């Protein structure tokens, strides 16, 4: 991933699965694996904290604390993340308005942690061909009122491997500050989110394309 151009590694050690019977993540062992990956590659790691108590552990092992979409309005978690000494990656809620999204970020900043990165990951709409509707328009909307960087997650946003590349290209063109892309060496055997994961080869090809698009809007990958 690093060779292909990735800058940060994201992995879920504590996973907020819809079903209690789905793979819940490896927990602290997962955090140790991420730390080992960082050791080997030099890539900083980001992983999700599910609750205020979990932030202690994530703060210890990871470089960045993710707050998932379903936790965007978990106010006690937001406040705890605001007291953390590591940056926070805040994902937009499943049906959050722009104001709700920014107010959740405001919670974190108001507790003293100014290092917040936003992430658009698709919102729920009536549209039924896609897991979520990726709201790319929120990128310029955020930039017009906030200085906070905003990333785009085209994997959760679309739910389908064949949509990841086109939406990634669009995300760069719309001015996103970065992308979070799910990659798996064998997506069909993935324990979670296989259908939306792309292979390392696809990722390489995607990065090559994105490197061509970024300069058009004066950015660089």
């Amino acid at each position, binding site marked *: 991933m690093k060779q292909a151009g990735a800058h940060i590694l994201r992995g879920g050690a504590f996973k907020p699965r819809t079903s209690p019977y789905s793979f819940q993540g490896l927990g602290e062992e997962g955090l140790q694996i991420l730390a080992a990956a960082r050791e080997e590659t030099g890539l900083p790691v980001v992983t999700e904290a599910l609750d205020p108590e979990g932030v202690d552990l994530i703060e210890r092992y990871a470089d960045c604390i993710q707050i998932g979409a379903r936790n965007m309005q978990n106010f006690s978690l937001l406040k705890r993340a605001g007291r953390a000494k590591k940056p926070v990656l805040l994902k937009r809620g499943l049906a959050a308005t722009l*104001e709700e999204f*920014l*107010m959740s970020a*405001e919670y974190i*900043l108001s507790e003293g942690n100014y290092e*917040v990165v936003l992430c658009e990951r698709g919102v729920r709409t009536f549209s039924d061909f896609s897991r979520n509707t990726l709201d790319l328009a929120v990128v310029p909307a955020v930039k017009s*009122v*906030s*200085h906070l960087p905003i990333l785009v997650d085209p994997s959760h946003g679309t739910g389908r491997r064949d949509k990841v590349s086109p939406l990634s290209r669009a995300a760069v063109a719309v001015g996103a500050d970065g992308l979070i892309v799910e990659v798996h060496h064998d997506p069909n055997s993935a324990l979670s989110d296989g259908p939306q994961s792309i292979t390392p080869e696809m990722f390489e090809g995607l990065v090559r394309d994105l490197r061509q698009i970024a300069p058009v809007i004066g950015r660089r990958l």
Partner: protein
Amino acid sequence: MLVVMRQSATPEEIRGVVAAIEARGFKAHPIPGAQRTAIGITGNRGAVDAPVFESLPGVLEVIPVTHAYKLVGG
């Protein structure tokens, strides 16, 4: 924040709103219009409590001018 008075608001009611604004240490800026009077509020450091003004006699609505978020808009 902008306090918009009803068309039927009396001068006493308008003075009442101005007094309520000044009682909180803010500055009131009455803006008489052709149809109705609006009263701007300045001098507040944080958000002004809208419901307090909404319930005053003669008030039609209270419109926040700035966003509710302060820090993310840095």
